[in-house]
Structures are given as C-alpha cells and as structure tokens.
C-alpha cells in the first residue's frame, strides 16, 4: 500500500526532534483523524536553515513530515509557503487515496510555523 519512498522516510525519518529557541513553531491537528504534528524552524536571512518535526500519526503522516522537512530546508520563506501537500505526496511517489489527507498535516504545520515566525518578527 505504501511506496518504497514512504517506507524509507517512515523507517528512517529525517530531522526528528525539536529546536531549542526555535524562530518559528507550528502545530496542527488533523481534523479527520485526530493526529498531531509539530514543526520547528531556524530561519536566517529569510532562508530556512533548519527544520525539525514531531508527529503523532500514521505511517503516511510520519513520512510526509520527514519529507516536508527535507523539502523546506534551504528554501526562502516565500518558496516554502508555496509547498503544497500534493507536492509532498508526489515527492514520496504518491500516497494511497485514503491517506492523502495525512499530507495536509505536514504542509499545514510548515505554513503555521512560518506564520508564527513572521508574527514573532512583526511583534519583535
């Protein structure tokens, strides 16, 4: 049911963990299944230098979390805002139809983290 790439990211997830004093933090819950994902950002000169994640979710949720962190590192904040759940799913060679909603978690959490960063900047 899962592609090799999904299983690879699931069994060896990249960038698991937290960043202390992160520049931005995003947390989202999945309305359809109740799963949760949290993303931490380190930003320099508008560029995402480091990303870490924590996820309570299914295989697809963990794999998309891992994938989205790889895809976000090195991107500008604007580029990262453009990352869609479909792009993350594609990068994993696709997800089963009933697991497409899981990829929303990853993209949404990333976007929330960027918004959080911008709010902090605005406030600061």
């Amino acid at each position, binding site marked *: 049911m899962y592609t090799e790439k999904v299983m690879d990211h699931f069994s060896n997830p990249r960038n*698991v963990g937290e960043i202390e004093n992160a520049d931005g933090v995003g947390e989202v819950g999945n309305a359809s299944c109740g*799963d*949760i994902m*949290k993303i931490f950002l380190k930003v320099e000169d508008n560029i995402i230098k480091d990303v870490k994640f*924590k*996820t*309570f*979710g*299914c295989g697809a949720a963990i794999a998309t979390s891992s994938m989205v962190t790889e895809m976000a590192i090195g991107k500008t904040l604007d580029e990262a805002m453009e990352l869609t759940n479909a792009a993350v799913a594609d990068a994993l060679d696709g997800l089963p139809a009933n697991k497409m909603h899981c990829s929303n978690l990853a993209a949404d959490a990333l976007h929330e983290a960027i918004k959080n960063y911008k709010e902090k900047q605005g406030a600061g």
Partner: protein
Amino acid sequence: MDYNATTPLRPEVLEAMLPFYREHFGNPSSVHWAGRMVSGAVEKAREQVARLINASPAEIVFTSCGSEGDNLALKGTVEALKDKGNHIITTAVEHPAVLNTCEFLEKNGCEVTYLPVDAEGMIDLAQLEAAITEKTILISAMWGNNETGTIFPIKEIGAIARKYKVRFHTDAVQAVGKLPVDVQKAGVDLLVISGHKIGAPKGVGAIYIRRGARMVPLIHGGHQERNRRAGTHNVAGIVGLGLACELAGRHLEENAARLKALRDKLERGIVERIPEVKVNGHPTRRLPNTLNVSFAYIEGESLLLNFDMKGVAASSGSACTSGSLEPSHVMGAMGVDIALAHSSTRFSLGPDSSEEDVDYILEILPPIVARLREMSPLYPGNK
C-alpha cells in the same frame, strides 16, 4: 499474532475440501448421483457444526461469512416479527456487521437501544432488563468482543431474554473455538459463526436458528437450506467448516489454557518492560487469546508498520473497520481517551503461536516504542 482477524486454513481441513473441488463437483440440490454424493457431505458438515455448539443439525444454516449471518439474524428477525414489535436492544461494542445493520434498520422504522459498556467493556444486566419494552423483539449481544476480548455474560442475558420472551441473537464469531459454546445452556436463539476465524476457509459461515424461530431469508431463491438461505452451496467450504468445527471441539479447553498462559506472559512482559501502557478490556472475563494494549503517545498504525517490518502481524482497531478513519468505536464506548484509543493495539494468539513468538515480540517492542515516543509531540519525556 492477529488471529482474531483471520486464521490460517488447517492443512487437514484443506485435504478434506480438495475432493469436492476435484471429483465431486455435483450440485447438492440436484437429484442425480453427482448431486447426492455431495449432499451427503454437506449434511455431515451440518452435524459437525451442530455438535460443537450442542444444536441439532436441522438448526444449522450455512452462510457465506459471519457478516451475512449477522445480517440474516437481524433483518430476518425484524421481517419475521414485524407484527410483534420493532425494538432491538444491542450493545455499543458490537461488530460493524451488527451495528451498521442496526443503523440501516433504524432508517427503516426500527428503534434500537445501544447499551453502553463500562471501562472494561462490560454491559450492565440491570440496564439491559430495564431497556426491554413491549415492542422489543430482539436482543443482540456478542459472545466475545473482537477488539478487547471482553466476554459478555451470555447465560445471564439468555435468562433475561427468556423471562421476557424476547429472541436472543449472539455474534459468536470470536467465541466459537476459543470457549465452550453451548446454545442450550446459553439460552440463545440465533448464533453466528464464521469459518475463517476457526481454521476453515474464508467465504463460509453458519448460523444457528433455534427450531421454531421464524425467520425471513436474506437471500431468497431456491429451496436450499430449508428455504432459509437460497443459493448454491459452497460445498468445499462447508465441508471445511464442518471439519474445522470438529477439530476445534477436540482439546478445546487445553488449547485455550495454553493460549491463555502465553497471552498472560505477553501481557505481563509488556506491562513490566514498557511504562505508560494500558491494558484494554476486562481483566478476567476475556477471550483467552486476546490482548489489547494502548501504548500512550503512539499512534497505532505507525506501530503496526514497525511490527510489519519485523514480520509480526497485529491490528489496531479491527481489520474490518480499517477503511474508516474513526478511532475504534469499542474504545470510544469504553470511554478510553481518544489519544489512547488511537494507540490501542491488539495481539491475538492462535494455534500456531508459540513461546518464541511471545519472546520475540517482547524483545522488539521496547525499542520500537521508545523510538516512536521520541518522535511524538505528545510525549512528555521529550520535554
């Protein structure tokens, strides 16, 4: 370790089936020799099934699966007894074959009471009794729960059903072959069996219909099964079910004791080795082979995938409901916290399960749990 989902076909059962695929291809409803040969085999299987549950052969109707049996029990009763009433009492933790059928019946003029369960998955008999009205035509309560293994007090329910002259159906798909099942002692009127849970093939089942209980068929057509279920018989499957029932009846209690010892070892091992786990289901009134555990902070599917990579099968919620995204309705009914429901994992042992299997799980489980917890935003140990 997922024998509540399905069991392997016993080799001797397959052997018994093969002649009915090779030589004896007659239709048991035909008058000629090819047919008569086969109808004898079907009748022998009927006796074998009947013997396991202390019924008479004429009270056994063959079906294609447990779900069909449950549908027939409910819809066939509602249709047959519609002049008497339209109220059904069931429980919140039944299999979807019962619950979704009830939901359908509610749309068609029935009233259904879903008895709640306590934290251990048990119903309250006083509540059951209080729910009975003049319109009640059926109580449907499963013998053993597929997710938690909790065993309902079938005999006591049967006594209440008798007292109020209400028909009693039990989905015994998980109980048959694991516990002694006696339709007379239990006082049930309808009892459903599924082949693939007891070493027979998928695609065959049976329902016990107490003599005299009027039923309207679910499948109308030819005169098979004394007009209670039309359609050409799955002859080989029926022969297999018969033998599987006979085999299940041999050494039933020793086998159950062996599985219980293994299950208890697994349970103890997990509780000792892994902090923050919760065993779901009744501590003592439980199927001897079933263990349901929630590993806090971990989502069930990710745990299953890790097991899968190590060659261990288990399930989270029931396999039959895996198409849905809802956390298990059984955990919900037991009031299990939603995150713990998500992490509930069922291990169910079967005839092939060994001490080594248990040891292996106890060995691989702690590092998997530790790794997944580290990944979890919910895990306080990470802070």
